[in-house]
């Protein structure tokens, strides 16, 4: 079965992002296919390289990155959600003349159409609200 996952929560603001990560890891390690993880609304903060968690707490962006690398996960960050929250890649930083960029490698900024595509292709889309 093809799964896609929608991550709405920022790291540490609620249990939402951690729950989504646990579910994504479980799907990736199962016989099912993880078609896409879509980082939406406050969930875009999971893709920020500027997150510095305390040493004794779960580093969500790194955990996502490990999952993406190990299982070749298509990790899409909603462009409209990300840009207005200050999560940007090098191209957008250049385009908007910002002094830095913080999108972690492995994540891709793209449009809401990628979420619609996930709905069209996936058997199940699991939304993790905040």
């Amino acid at each position: 079965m093809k799964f896609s996952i929608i991550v709405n929560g920022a790291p540490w603001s609620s249990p939402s992002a951690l729950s989504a990560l646990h579910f994504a890891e479980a799907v990736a390690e199962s016989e099912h296919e993880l078609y896409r993880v879509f980082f939406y609304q406050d969930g875009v903060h999971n893709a920020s390289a500027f997150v510095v968690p305390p040493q004794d707490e779960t580093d969500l962006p790194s955990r996502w990155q490990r999952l993406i690398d190990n299982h070749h996960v298509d990790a899409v960050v909603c462009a409209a959600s990300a840009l207005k929250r200050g999560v940007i890649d090098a191209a957008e930083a250049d385009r908007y003349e910002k002094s830095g960029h913080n999108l972690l490698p492995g994540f891709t900024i793209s449009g809401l159409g990628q979420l619609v595509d996930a709905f069209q292709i996936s058997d199940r889309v699991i939304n993790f609200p905040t």
Partner: protein
Amino acid sequence: MSNDSLVILVRHTPYSSHHARAAMDLTLTAAAFDSDVGVVFMDEGVFQLISGQDTGTSGFKNVGKMIPALAAYDVDKVYVHTPSAARFSIEDEYAMDGLLPLDDEALKTLVQNARHVMVY
């Protein structure tokens, strides 16, 4: 609705959060990608349907003007959950014609038959 349908349930008032705008964005994007999309205004979400919304200097975009324009983007399945509208006594204040009424039973059937459901 076909098996490819996406049903979007809109449950929040228009200007208390970003949910109303986000729901409209997904609805329009789904329509642009030729998805079979239906949008249901229910619970406090029915307040998005009332006419005369004046966002003034609030900084919000006027959702009340976007919803009547949905038909222009080929979104013709715009539902109102009638028990919600009755609860808030707004049945005579809609900003648009052509809303499809849904009672509890019809809502249940719509959700059961949808391939995907997104809640805002």
